[in-house]
């Protein structure tokens, strides 16, 4: 079977149309601060039978259904897309991070999988008709699949959201990333077992017990032995072969080999490539630069081909079943948000911050689509369920950022100067010595937060005696670490200024008292640097000093953020 000249023309033409639309809609969605992948999926729906196929069936058929050969070629490319996508997913899992998580992260990870999985499994097992089960013999496998589909989290979408909300490098960001990585790992293992079980029903796979055995054996082999070999070979390859060509080839060769092997033994190809990806990504010798090149290459060329192809196969309007779609949506939200939030709450976070984690982990994005596509190809789910899954993936991904943003405004774990300012602890003082202002500030804080004035005052003065806390440009930040639970900030404005022994010899006018918990020394540094950074322009400080009352001051400070 070979491609005729027409086939080749059409094939290449359709590829360029797919990429053109993928990029166009991707950029559009990026512009409105949404994940690019959402735009790509929507581009597919527009190019597919849903819109183009209905309005201009001729154009649609000649582009994407020209001949069997072209369809096969397109399928081959999209398979390659999925395999590469999973390679990247594996590489981005930081194994050592997953293995040494803090108590909270473990709680989030575990409940974030167990809870949605149980919700999905039980609903699908006992009420399969509401979730669109077509073949009753497959009830158990179907229930396992729904459980997995609900418990998956899309790491790339999560990462993007955290970056957009500027909490990637924060305690919450770190927790979400660690939990999402663990989630990915466990999710794909369960899904491989489910895929193996489907294969069993059609009679070309191993029995279940040996399947589990093979999966675990393969993981141990790759994650221990192959990982060591990769770790030893990478420095050699990077030194001796051309860079980045040599190392890129090495990675893809290993990935494809792993994929071929697992496909051969009856688990899907994606499992092998995913595990190999983890082994590669764990090596300290893999340069950040190499990672980025792989990501660029895969996500800008192959991933869009795959995501657009989703829409090319199915008519989304014809197969839209409002009942199934709403059941999936409700279950998805309940499962993931409740599960992860409970985990975070159980791990000791407050209600608001737990909800940030819950909604942060709710994005299903790309990974759900991969899962759904494979289940659809294997005949486990029909068009209606597939459409419901895609919509669920889109809705959970789009809603994640705005909802998180809402709770972030009230978050305790995200520390910044402006979020800690309280009008009750802002004073306009006429004191004329450093000691008097500090006394006044300590009194205000002690009264408002129910603390012992002497303890607060002694701690602050003790710190003040070592070296002056006067910074530049009228700013002074007296501070102390104390046995308190949450950080406390108070502000004094002294219009006439007080000598604070500052670097630039300017009198202090804007005085910030900063009290942080003694068991978290880093919080103090973070806030000190945050304040110093925001007020490095003397005009800003003069503007703040000119405030008439606390309300105006808070307003002006918030303008800076």
């Amino acid at each position, binding site marked *: 079977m070979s491609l005729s000249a027409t086939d080749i023309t059409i094939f290449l033409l359709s590829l360029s149309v797919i990429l053109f639309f993928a990029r166009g809609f*991707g950029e559009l969605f*990026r512009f409105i601060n949404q*994940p*690019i*992948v959402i735009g790509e999926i929507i581009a597919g729906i527009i190019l597919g039978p849903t819109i183009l196929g209905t309005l201009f069936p001729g154009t649609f058929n000649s582009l994407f259904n020209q001949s069997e050969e072209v369809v096969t070629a397109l399928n081959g490319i999209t398979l390659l897309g999925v395999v590469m996508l999973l390679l*990247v997913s594996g590489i*981005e899992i*930081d*194994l*050592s*991070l997953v*293995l*040494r998580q803090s108590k909270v992260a473990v709680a989030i990870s575990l409940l974030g999988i167990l809870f949605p999985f149980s919700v999905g499994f039980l609903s699908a097992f006992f009420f399969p008709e509401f979730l669109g089960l077509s073949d009753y013999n497959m009830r158990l496998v179907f229930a396992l699949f729904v459980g997995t589909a609900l418990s998956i989290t899309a*790491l*790339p*979408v999560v*990462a*993007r959201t955290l*970056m957009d909300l500027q909490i*990637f*490098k924060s305690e919450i960001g*770190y927790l979400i*990333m*660690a939990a999402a*990585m663990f989630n990915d790992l466990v999710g794909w293992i369960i899904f491989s077992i489910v895929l193996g079980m489907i294969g069993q029903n059609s009679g070309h796979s191993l029995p279940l017990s040996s399947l589990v055995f093979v999966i675990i054996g393969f993981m141990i082999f790759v994650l*221990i032995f192959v990982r060591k070999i990769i770790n030893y070979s990478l420095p050699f390859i990077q030194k001796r072969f051309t860079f980045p060509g040599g190392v890129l080839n090495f990675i893809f060769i290993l990935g494809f080999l792993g994929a071929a092997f697992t496909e051969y033994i009856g688990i899907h190809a994606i499992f092998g490539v995913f595990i190999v990806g983890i082994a590669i990504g*764990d090596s*300290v010798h893999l340069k*950040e630069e190499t*990672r*980025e090149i792989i*990501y*660029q290459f895969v*996500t*800008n060329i192959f991933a869009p081909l795959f995501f657009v192809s989703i829409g090319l196969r199915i008519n989304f309007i014809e197969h839209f079943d409002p009942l199934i779609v709403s059941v999936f949506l409700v279950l998805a939200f309940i499962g993931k948000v409740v599960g992860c939030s409970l985990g975070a709450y159980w791990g000791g976070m407050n209600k608001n911050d737990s909800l940030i984690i819950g909604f942060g982990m709710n994005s299903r994005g790309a990974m759900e689509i991969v899962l759904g596509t494979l289940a659809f190809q294997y005949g486990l789910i029909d068009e209606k369920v597939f459409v419901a899954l895609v919509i669920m993936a889109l809705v959970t991904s789009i809603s994640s950022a705005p909802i998180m943003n809402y709770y972030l405004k009230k978050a305790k774990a995200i520390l910044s100067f402006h979020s800690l300012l309280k009008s009750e602890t802002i004073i306009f003082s006429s004191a004329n010595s450093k000691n008097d202002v500090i006394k006044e500030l300590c009194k205000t804080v002690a009264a408002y937060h129910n603390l012992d004035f002497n303890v607060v005052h002694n701690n602050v003065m003790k710190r003040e005696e*070592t*070296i002056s806390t006067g910074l530049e440009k009228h700013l002074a930040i007296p501070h102390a670490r104390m046995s308190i639970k949450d950080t406390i900030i108070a502000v004094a404005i002294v219009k006439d200024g007080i000598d604070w022994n500052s670097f630039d010899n300017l009198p202090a006018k804007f005085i910030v008292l900063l009290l942080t918990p003694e068991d978290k*020394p*880093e919080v103090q*540094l*973070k806030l*000190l*640097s945050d304040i*110093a*950074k925001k007020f490095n322009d003397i005009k800003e400080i003069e503007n703040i000093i000119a405030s008439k009352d606390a309300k105006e001051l808070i307003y002006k400070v918030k303008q800076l953020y």
Partner: protein
Amino acid sequence: MIFKKIGLAITFSPNGLPLLKTAIRLKKLFNSNLCLIHVGEKNPETESQINNLIEKAGISPNAFNLVWKKGDPAKSIIAAVTENNIDLLIAGALEKENVIKYYLGSVARTIMRESPCSVLIITNPGTEPEKFKQFCVSVDFSQLGETAVKKSYEFAKLENAIEFILVKEFEIPGLAITVYDSGSTDDTEKSKQEWQLEEEDKLKLFARELNLTGLDYRLVALLGKQGWEARNFVKENGSDLFVVPSHPKKLKFFDKLFQHDIEFILSQLPCSLLIIRN
């Protein structure tokens, strides 16, 4: 006082004498006590060997006390540390051990991980002990981290060190993934630079809070894997003493298999290593 009592396990290996000389040098430098530990049978032969060693090192018999221990070397040394209130244990170690030894654990590595007090590991003891000239301290913003900086700073001043560097590593897991969805390396690069500046600021403030005076210091913030980045920095910089704050930890086989943090440093020592413990 930086350290009150120095402990050294004496061995009759080629490194035995140089290590003893180093311990004596540091005893004088810190003005501290010295406790020598020997694990093995106490008989006339070993006694004369020890006396021989002490004579060669040139230390008067009442300047130290000698403890005899029997049994598993690592466990016995750790027991002696607790019994004798030793707060700095000196040991020699190879820079890198072979694979089998790494997984089974050598005496030196076990001490590094599990000793309840601070440990000084000397990698290449010369016949005559030399001063440490280039200090590099790995900083975390914990209380132990502060102690580590203060102690090593005093140490560096006593040595008249020519270089004192504070290194702070910061890790941002999954950073490359953000390239994945936007397809833009520029955005990621920009964030990386912002975080770098933020960490440098924090490090500056950290050092300022500790009020370090008397010796110039340099600050370095590194983005990358904990343990691994600092180790490579020290190696490339050519420092001769690397200081790391670390709590004692019984290492499981699992941790060795999936290395992290201090294990990167312990498995391939970049130079002599001082582990600071409470």
